[in-house]
């Protein structure tokens, strides 16, 4: 079904000297099967927001509903929520601990109380989904490359078969190639399984190509919540809060200013190529 946040507030270090209002009256609905990008500058509250969605942080006020149940109800089972809403933390490779990749991926499903057969089958399935090369399954997770470690960690959450997958900056610290590979794999996963996916990022470039909807966070508040092309039309405001629209937006606006009849709302490189070619009166396909 869906996740609904209703007037959620959260403050770190509530009565200390350094209290930080990390979430300020956040209201959101995440329907099933949507691929959502959550974007914001560092410190805007993205990680805090997603930790509310699986109950790791408890809102100071407000309510969160998951599949029609209030997650703060006394008899609500948090453990069940955590298996349904899988959260992959930033730098998830820091949580690897088992002697080999396969056992590490089994940790989640085993915690759900599944028997060995079921847990191991799920682990195989998850490792395949994230594109882990089979010869690495029985390697120590600490000997993998950065990108492979991250795959292993994502598989660890995926193996719990969540209905909603949340990835907190899954591309942080990866090189451009590793970044594109991971993002493509996530998109493929979403298309194939129609899973609800929330992708947290501080880079528009990351999400523009893939998501159906973008939520822009600024200082703990939801600033924009719309389809990518609508959000990017505010590119001047986005710059003010330290975010940049994708490069194509800038190029298209510059072309428009110089008199070319291009559609400035194209968000992906493919769309941009098409509208530029159209303006030039040529036909072509984006390679």
């Amino acid at each position, binding site marked *: 079904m869906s996740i609904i946040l209703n007037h959620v507030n959260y403050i770190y*270090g509530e*009565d*200390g*000297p*350094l209290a930080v209002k990390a979430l300020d009256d956040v209201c959101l609905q995440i329907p099933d099967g949507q691929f959502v990008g959550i974007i914001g500058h560092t410190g805007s509250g993205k990680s805090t927001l997603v*930790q509310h969605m*699986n109950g*790791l942080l408890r809102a100071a006020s407000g309510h969160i509903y998951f599949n029609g149940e209030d997650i703060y109800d006394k008899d609500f089972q948090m*453990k069940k929520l*955590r*298996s349904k809403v*899988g*959260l992959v*933390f930033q730098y*998830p490779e*820091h*949580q*690897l*601990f088992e002697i080999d990749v396969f056992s590490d991926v089994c*940790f*989640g499903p*085993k*915690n*759900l109380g599944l028997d060995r057969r079921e847990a191991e089958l799920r682990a195989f399935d998850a490792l395949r989904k994230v594109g882990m090369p089979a010869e690495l399954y029985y390697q120590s997770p*600490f000997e993998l490359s950065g990108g492979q470690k991250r795959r292993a960690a994502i598989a*660890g*959450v995926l193996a*719990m078969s969540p209905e909603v997958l949340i990835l907190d900056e899954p591309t942080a610290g990866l090189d451009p190639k590793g970044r594109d590979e991971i993002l493509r794999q996530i998109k493929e996963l979403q298309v194939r399984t129609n899973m609800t996916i929330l992708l947290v990022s501080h880079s528009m470039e990351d999400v523009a190509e893939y998501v159906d909807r973008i939520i822009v966070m600024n200082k703990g508040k939801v600033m924009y919540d719309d389809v990518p092309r609508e959000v990017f039309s505010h590119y001047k405001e986005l710059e003010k809060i330290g975010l940049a629209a994708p490069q194509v937006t800038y190029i298209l606006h510059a072309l428009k200013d110089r008199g070319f009849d291009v559609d400035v709302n194209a968000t992906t490189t493919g769309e941009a190529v098409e509208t530029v070619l159209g303006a030039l009166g040529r036909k072509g396909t984006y390679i």
Partner: protein
Amino acid sequence: MLRDITLGQYYQTESVIHRLDPRVKLGGTLLYIISLFLFRNFLGYGAAAVFLAAVIGLSHVPFKFIVKGMKAIVFLLLITVVFNLFLTPGTELVSVWKLTITVEGLRTAVTMAVRLTMLIIGSSLMTLTTTPNNLTDGMERMMRPLKVFKVPVHEVAMIMSIALRFIPILLEETDKIMKAQIARGADFETGNIVKRAKALVPLLVPLFISAFRRANDLAMAMEARCYRGGEGRTKMKPLVYEKRDRLGYLCIFVYLAVGITVGRLRF
């Protein structure tokens, strides 16, 4: 979760006490603690309480925040009081079943409770108003004479400041790893001792790995900046006594003189 521990923590704000030279605070705290053990009557504790209240007032640290840090040691305090109350021999005051409270017991228990509370508030006030770096700087400077006896004062101070610097980082790291494993269905809170100990493996392994990684990075960074121990090293901000520091020492000595004079009277 783990960030609620306030004992030994620094409270950032602007105050005279925060700006005092760490040596004044270290020396003052030491003398204050000694003074608590010299008093023979309640006038002395009264003087100590007034002095403490004045310092808390000047420090701009909310009293609520100080008390919050005390919660961790309430249990210790309680044990001390109970043992003293029931196990001190002397003239009987009340007796219920096998337990006897004596006049002497009551007196020692109350004295102990007052002493411990003031001692802990006093010393946590020092850490609340002094940054760890400042604190180790002060200690290094005060222990300098020990160099004559070949004590590696600088190295000890450096180790201490690094350790102190890493406590919040490792706490934060623990918090993060714990959350990440809880998100994978780990359970740190239920089960018997064996089960709970086992549940710590997914927390401790990543934590140790991260601690070693950080230590390695730090060592590399220090070496890259040519750190080779304390020999010939100068300070960017050397500790220099100012007027307020001399005034601070004066206040402490006035307190000591008054406290000990009235506190050691016998009635």
